[in-house]
């Protein structure tokens, strides 16, 4: 089943993007104002967000989202109009957060074909009831007024004077002779109100009895004291409820063609013009936009000359459409096809061809005050245009946005291209052919330098486009902590440090899930319950600190709590119990012991809570981070708290490498993992050339040729270059025959046809085309050192 209006698929991406950012905006405001004052600006902003979501959801044909947004909008309408209105703020925020979450979920649902749209009726009822309470009404009564399909318009004659009040009296189902009960009630009102009439009108007619039981009895009266009347009515026998009802804002649909408002037909209309009347159901949100979509959909089969009401961009047209229907004027060869197409539209109850009423039968006294729908050019325009964005509430000055949103893949493509340009530039500038040129190349060299400057700048700019502050990822955690505080009652503060640190967009996306897990863990396991905390004499407020910063080409994100910390012995004991220890307990360093919590199948919390403790948290987090080349460390002090540190390389597809030659193979080692290059002297070498002494450290030394099992002469270690590498604290030395060049490369992953040979797992991360057209293989020193350590550890 299609979830949204046909033809709107193309808008889905935009809708999802816009709505998501609006909801994030909403969350921000809610978080900020929950424990603070809700300023009129905030209220207007929330109102605008909800209004926009309502509009765009309606445009997409997503009735459920639209209605939910509408109910919240209504709620804020009340607050906006009357700032002094009293309400239960925490309860309202619960509802708002629930609505925000539901809308967010729904955005996922509409993108997943396997899931049906959610029914938000329950939440909407809650919000409506809440709004009703704010309006000073009884919640249940307000909900009651909306029920059933009973047509209130029959109760309210059009010529009713405004001072007449209508009360609805509901009798219980057991009530015998409700007509008589009604008569008694009306008579009882004699002293305090002047009763003008009732509905059903004739209380002496027995048939009215059933109607009263079904729809209630409506009593019309004029009075000075509404409440007294209601009290009086409520005291009546068998009376369940009595309430004031008001005339519905929009009259209900007139169903027949006879009910045609003035101005639909112009006198000078061409004869072959057909007028189709489209009736929408009462539930239809944003009928104007529905109308526009319908008109646009007709493009192929008919030429639309105009509509009535003429201006579909005008919000006030909406009510008219609901009341009288939408009239579309068009020229077509196939009336039936047009009607059939219109009938398929969302919310459309009926579509029929109507004809001009005979003048003598329904004389049109004077030209309608509004411009009739016969100016085809002007009127057809709004239909062709994109639906206008819903109007912002007045007060907020129109600002032209200086921000555009771009698809990430386009940026990726741009980055790839720039990378290729940088490489190609160096191919041109250091082209071997230039060496044979005898003429003076001064001017060429100057231009080449200029070009290089520009490409460098271009590269920086493109990189910076993709950079976003980590606060995007951090601010989501505020919500997580807030929700947990509600359920766990720990009152944890969340503090940010360095949230302005900019990282590549892809990293922020990767960070979301791990951060969520880590923060949840910190609040759930890290921070002690308040009584325990008080018992241990801690006075400082329970705090979780998220910090971000750079450290030598890496982004460092840390989550620190001042909670209980972890007990090394407990971790080891648990590890022993679960059989995941790989060496004697005494050999475990602190870091390794704490690292146990990241091993699969490890959870120290005895009780599995809503938030954590299923034993599949941290190992998944660690794997996620490692899969993008990052690392996760744990540090802890018993009684003082724990720190989880994530280190992720700045995602740059261009990396600085050192080219090396190993027995005819061209390898490149990322400079980020090289500490220094040096030549070995015989006195440095120890233990049969397997260890080397350097800078006061004794390090293992390996030959690349042995690691990759390539043939080559076995040069003495003093005859080539030694690379001292450091990856995540692990150091080792590597021997290579000679260095080739210091260069920048764009890493290309190996072809899928090669990846079956597990090259990545053996420390070959990809390859790259160099400036001279040759190819180099990029080494992953982390993988190499890990593999070597593992091999020797066994």
């Amino acid at each position: 089943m299609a979830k949204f209006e046909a033809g709107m698929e193309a808008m889905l991406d935009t809708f999802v993007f816009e709505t998501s950012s609006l909801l994030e905006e909403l969350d921000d405001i809610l978080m900020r104002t929950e424990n603070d004052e809700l300023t009129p600006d905030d209220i207007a902003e929330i109102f605008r967000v909800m209004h926009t979501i309502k509009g765009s959801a309606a445009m997409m044909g997503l009735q459920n989202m639209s209605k939910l947004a509408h109910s919240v909008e209504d709620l804020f309408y009340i607050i906006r109009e009357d700032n002094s209105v009293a309400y239960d703020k925490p309860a309202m925020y619960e509802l708002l957060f629930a609505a925000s979450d539901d809308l967010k979920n729904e955005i996922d649902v509409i993108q997943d074909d396997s899931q049906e749209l959610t029914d938000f009726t329950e939440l909407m009822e809650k919000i409506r009831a809440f709004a009703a309470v704010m309006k000073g009404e009884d919640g249940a009564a307000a909900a009651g007024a909306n029920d059933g399909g009973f047509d209130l318009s029959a109760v309210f004659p059009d010529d009713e004077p405004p001072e007449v009040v209508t009360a609805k009296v509901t009798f219980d189902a057991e009530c015998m002779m409700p007509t008589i009960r009604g008569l008694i009630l009306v008579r009882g009102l004699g002293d305090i109100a002047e009763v003008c009439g009732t509905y059903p009108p004739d209380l002496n007619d027995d048939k009215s009895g059933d109607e009263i039981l079904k729809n209630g009895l409506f009593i019309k009266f004029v009075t000075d004291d509404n409440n007294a009347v209601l009290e009086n009515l409520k005291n009546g026998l068998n009376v369940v409820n009595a309430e004031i009802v008001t005339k519905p804002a929009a009259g209900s649909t007139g169903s027949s063609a006879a009910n045609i408002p003035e101005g639909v037909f112009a006198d000078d209309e061409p004869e072959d013009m057909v007028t189709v009347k489209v009736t929408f159901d009462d539930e239809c949100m944003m009928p104007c936009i529905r109308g526009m979509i319908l008109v646009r959909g007709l493009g192929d089969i008919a030429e639309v000359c105009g509509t009535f009401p003429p201006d579909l961009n005008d919000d006030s047209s909406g009510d008219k459409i609901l009341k009288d229907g939408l009239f579309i004027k068009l020229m077509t060869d196939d009336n039936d096809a047009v009607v059939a197409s219109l009938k398929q539209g969302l919310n459309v109850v009926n579509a029929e061809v109507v004809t001009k009423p005979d003048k003598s039968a329904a004389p049109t006294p004077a030209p309608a005050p509004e411009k009739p729908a016969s100016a085809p050019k002007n009127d057809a325009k709004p239909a062709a245009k994109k639906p206008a964005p819903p109007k912002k509430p007045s007060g907020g000055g129109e600002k032209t946005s200086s921000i555009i949103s771009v698809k990430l893949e386009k940026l990726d493509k741009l980055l790839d291209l720039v990378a290729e340009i940088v490489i190609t530039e160096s191919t041109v500038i250091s082209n071997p052919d230039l060496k044979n040129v005898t003429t003076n190349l001064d001017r060429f060299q100057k231009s080449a330098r200029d070009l290089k400057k520009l490409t460098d700048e271009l590269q920086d700019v493109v990189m910076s486009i993709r950079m976003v502050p980590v606060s995007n990822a951090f601010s989501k955690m505020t919500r997580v902590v807030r929700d947990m505080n509600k359920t766990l009652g720990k009152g944890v503060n969340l503090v940010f440090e360095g949230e302005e640190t900019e990282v590549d967009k892809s990293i922020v996306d990767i960070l979301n899930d791990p951060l969520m897990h880590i923060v949840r863990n910190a609040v759930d396991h890290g921070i002690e319950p308040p009584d325990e905390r008080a018992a241990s004499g801690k006075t400082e407020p329970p705090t979780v600190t998220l910090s971000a910063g750079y450290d030598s080409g890496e982004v460092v994100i840390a989550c620190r709590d001042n909670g209980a910390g972890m007990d090394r012995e407990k971790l080891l004991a648990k590890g022993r119990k679960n059989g995941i220890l790989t060496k004697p307990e005494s050999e475990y360093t602190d870091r390794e012991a704490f690292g146990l919590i990241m091993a699969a199948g490890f959870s120290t919390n005895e009780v599995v809570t809503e938030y954590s403790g299923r034993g599949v948290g941290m190992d998944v987090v660690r794997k996620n981070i490692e899969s993008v080349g990052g690392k996760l460390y744990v540090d802890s002090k018993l009684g003082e708290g724990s720190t989880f540190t994530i280190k992720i390389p700045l995602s740059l597809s261009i990396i600085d490498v050192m080219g090396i030659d190993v027995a005819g193979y061209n390898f490149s080692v990322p400079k980020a993992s090289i500490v220094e290059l040096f030549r070995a002297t015989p006195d440095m070498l120890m233990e049969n050339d397997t260890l080397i002494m350097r800078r006061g450290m004794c390090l293992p030394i390996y030959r690349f040729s042995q690691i990759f099992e390539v043939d080559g002469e076995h040069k003495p270690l003093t005859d080539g270059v030694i690379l001292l590498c450091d990856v995540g604290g692990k150091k080792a030395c590597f021997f290579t025959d000679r260095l080739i060049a210091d260069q920048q490369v764009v890493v290309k992953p190996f072809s899928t046809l090669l990846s079956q040979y597990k090259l990545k797992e053996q420390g070959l991360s990809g390859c790259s085309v160099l400036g001279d057209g040759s190819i180099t293989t990029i080494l992953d020193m982390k993988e190499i050192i890990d593999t070597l350590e593992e091999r020797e550890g066994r």
Partner: protein
Amino acid sequence: MSEENKELTADLSGQIMTFTCNDETYAFDIKDITDIIEIPEITKIPKLPEFLLGVINLRGQVVPVMDFNLRIGKPRQEYDSKTCIIVTERDKANIGIIVNRVLDVEAITKKEVIPYPKKGSVIWGYLDRGGKRTALIDWYALVGQEKKQTL
């Protein structure tokens, strides 16, 4: 005819490119072939099976190269002026295949294919034209399997 062979037959484009290696004639479906080039400099990559010689730079793309003779377990033949690389592509994955000599493009009808009976081979069918036999190569089997297949 096995299910797999049926699929491959149904997949035939109607033209094949024939080539020889060690005096036998083989053929690829022409729609798998994107280029026929001379052998450029091949960059060796460690830890690969013997028949995968390394990678080449094909207009900025890094393309792996295999030696057909080694792949099917035949001895290596010296490369000469007729030796060339047939660059093939399927599912956006490129691979160059070194063959001794490219012969011709021939038309083929599905009815002509004689199914190859053994499973797990890089050959999926034969063409027999007056005693001149051509083996049809299954591209996926050729590049997808780790172990060398002997005929």
